[in-house]
């Protein structure tokens, strides 16, 4: 899960491999804040798979690549 300077840099790094999932940094920040916001809370309880999938779905990260186990 890496940051690249541009699409050109990503494609060169992939070197012909199939790309995985790609998003803007704006969406990454939204995702991270939705996913990790409660992680240091003393009242933290585990997210369910459904809760985490809902976070991905709410940001348009859908399709088979983004389906959690």
């Amino acid at each position, binding site marked *: *899960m*890496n*940051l*690249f*300077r*541009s*699409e050109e*840099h*990503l494609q*060169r*790094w992939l070197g012909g491999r199939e*790309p*995985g*999932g*790609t*998003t*803007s*940094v*704006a*969406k*990454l*920040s*939204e*995702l*991270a*804040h939705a*996913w*990790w*916001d*409660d*992680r*240091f809370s*003393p009242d*933290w*309880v*585990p997210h369910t798979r459904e809760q985490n999938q809902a976070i*991905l779905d709410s940001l348009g990260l859908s399709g*088979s*690549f*983004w*389906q*959690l*186990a």
Partner: protein
Amino acid sequence: MNGADLDLRRRTYAFMVDNGRAPQAEELGTREDVVVGWRRLHDAHALVLNPATDEIRMLNPLSAVPTAYRVHAAGRWWYANCAWDAFGVCAALHADGRIEASCPDCGEPIAVEVRDAKSDDESLLFHVLVPARHWWDDIVFT
């Protein structure tokens, strides 16, 4: 995950946030009891142990070992496990921050300021190589 496991997890994370490093098992209780609890938390994906040593490897989004993603937030430098977790450090601390990394392709430095949960550089691209259903097959590689 029972109440005792959740309490051990809470104390483990609190130690990391307070001290800027992961605890040794002995710092939280009897080593054997703590390690047994950590193993249950590892199996539940609530933290990640180094299986060879039973030491903490990840308290997601924080890394207990140096990585390519450094984050300055809440008055301290932290290591994150990946780009997602780097933003997650700011999110979990509820703080603005600065992320420093390098482009995996060219090695040029990347620096991102996070203010009010937003990045100051929208030109960058985030890429995930491993499909979500396989993230926990090998979380260190992911």
